[in-house]
C-alpha cells in the first residue's frame, strides 16, 4: 500500500473510528479538523515507531511532522532508509 494510503488508513481507523475520510484531504491539518489530541499524538507516535521502525525523538513531536497526511508522509519518508 502506498505510504499516504497506509497513513490515511491508520488515521481513519483510529481517530475517525472508520468513518469515511473522504472529507479529509492529504494537506488538511488534524488540529484544525479536530481529529487528534495529545493522547492521539502518542498513539500516532507508537504506530509510526512500530510500523516503520523509526525512532521518534521528543523534538520530532511537532505539527510540521505530524499534523496532516502530507506532513506525516514527508516525515516518515525522511526517516526511512533510502534504497
Amino acid at each position, binding site marked *: 500500500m502506498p505510504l499516504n494510503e497506509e497513513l490515511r488508513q491508520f488515521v481513519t481507523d483510529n481517530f475517525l473510528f472508520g468513518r469515511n475520510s473522504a472529507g479529509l484531504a492529504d494537506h488538511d491539518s488534524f488540529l484544525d479538523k479536530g481529529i487528534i489530541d495529545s493522547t492521539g499524538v502518542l498513539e500516532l507516535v507508537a504506530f509510526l515507531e512500530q510500523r516503520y521502525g523509526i525512532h521518534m525523538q521528543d523534538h520530532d*513531536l511537532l505539527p510540521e511532522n505530524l499534523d496532516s497526511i502530507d506532513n506525516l508522509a514527508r516525515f516518515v519518508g525522511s526517516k526511512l532508509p533510502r534504497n
Partner: protein
Amino acid sequence: MQVESFLEQSAHSLPHKTALVCGARRLAYRELDESANRLAHSLIAAGVQRGDRVAVYLENSIEAVASIFAILKAGGVFLVINPTTKADKLCYILNNCRAKGLITDGRRLGASGRGILGDVLCLSAVWLAGGIGEDVPATGHRLVDLDAVLRDTGLPPQALPKRAIDIDLAALIYTSGSTGRPKGVMLTHLNIVSAATSITTYLENRTEDIILSVLPLSFDYGLYQVLMAFKIGGTVVLERSFTYPSKALDILVREKVTGFPIVPTMAAVLLQMDLSAFQSPSLRYITNTAAALPTEHIRRLRDLFPSAKLYSMYGLTECKRVSYLPPEQLDVRPASIGRGMPNEEVYIVDDEGNRVEPEIVGELVVRGANVMKGYWELPEETDKVLKPGPLPGEKVLHTGDLFKSDEEGYFYFVGRKDDIIKTRGEKVSPREVEDVLHSIPEVAEAAVIGVPDPLLGQAIRAVISLREGTQLGEKDVLSYCAARLEDFMVPKSVAFVSSLPKTGSGKVSKREMAVSAGETI
C-alpha cells in the same frame, strides 16, 4: 468592579505592554482594548442589550478573547462553547439561554450549523471570524464580518458607558448535569472578580508574569488564565491545545513563561517525554487542578521544573476554585488539596448540615462571594446545591464532593456523591453519553462508567447489550458517539454484554460494572 475593567485598567496603565500572544500574533493592551470596544459597538448596533447572552464558539484565539471582553463591555453575558461541540448541543445551548448573538467562524458554522441554526430563532446576528466566504452556509441570519469589525477604524475605539453593575450576570458556563443536559452556571461580575482576586493573591501574580495557557477558554480554568493575567497586567500566551507538547515546551522557553497551568493528563504526557536537556529557568509556578496528581508525578515534575512552585488545587465551576495547597505543604501532605482561598470559607457537613470534626467524612461546603447565583432557569437543580447560609438571604454551595479534613484544617478528597466521571480534567455526565448510546437503534441497554486510566485519570467505558438478532462493533459505537459528542466525552472502549448487571431493585449496578471492568483490564 466589572470584569471588563481588568482589560480596561491595564490598557490605561500599560497601553503598550503585550497582553496576548497567539501563534505569530502579539497584541498590546491598548490594541486589544480598542478592538474589543469596536466589537462592543457592533454588538449594540445589532441589538444586544444589557443582560443579553452572546455565545463565543471559537478555538483559543485573539478573536475569542476580544469577543469575551466586547460582550461584557456591551453589558452582555458571555458564554464560551467548547469548539468541539456538535450541532445538536450547540443549538440546545443557544436556545436554552436564548442567545442574542453568536461569534464563530465560517468553518465551524459549516461543520455544525448547516440548516441547524435555522432552529435557533433567538439570534439576531452571527459574527464570523476569518471572513464571510462562499463556503459559509446560508442560515437566514444576519452575518457580520468579525475581522473587519475588530480592525475597522470606522467604529469608535473608545469604551462605552458602563451598562452592567457588579451584581449583574457576566458569564454562563455550561457544565455537565446529572440529567444529561448541560446546565448553565450563572456567574456575576462580583463572582468572577472575587475568585480572580483570591487566586491571583495566593499565586502572588505580578505584572511581570507571562502565563502559557493551552486550556480551552470554554473550561473555566482556561478562561481564568486570561482574566487573571489581564487583571494583573501580565501577558498570556494562548495556544489552541496541548496536542503537540514539544511545541508548547518550545514556547514555554522562548517566551520566558513564568506560569504554567496544567491538568493531570498533561503532566502524564510531559513525563513520558525525555526532557533531560530541557531547561526553563523563568518558570515561577505550575498549577494543577481537575484531579490530584499522583505523588510520583509531583516528584518528577519538581525535578523537571526545579525553579517552579507547584500548586495543587481543587475547584468546581459553581464557585471557580475551592482550595489550594501552599507549595511548601506539598512535602508535608502531598495527598491534600489544601485549604480555602483567601476571602472564602470552606467546611465539611454531615447529612443534616452540621459541621463535622476533623477526620470525619462529609460534604464540602463553600461560602464566599465567588459562589454562583445558580443554574440558568433551573430553580430545582439550583436548590439542591445552593442552600441557606448563616446570614439572612445568603446561599452557600454544597459541592456534592465528599471530603475530610485533618487536625490542621487541610482537606482531602474522598469521593463524589454522584457518578460524574472526570476524564482528561473535564467532568462528564454518564447520562449525557448514555442518552447518545440509547439512540443507536441496535442498542437495548447501555451504561457508562469511568475506569482508572494512567493518562486520562478516568477513561470512559461504555457497556452495552444489543437487541436480539442485531450486530454492532466497537468502531460503529465510537464513530456514532464521535459525531454527536464533544471529543472528551467519546468513550475510549466498549464492552458488549448479554445484559447489564442490576441491583436488587432493578437499577443498573455501576459498581458491579466497575469491578468487572477492573478484572478485564
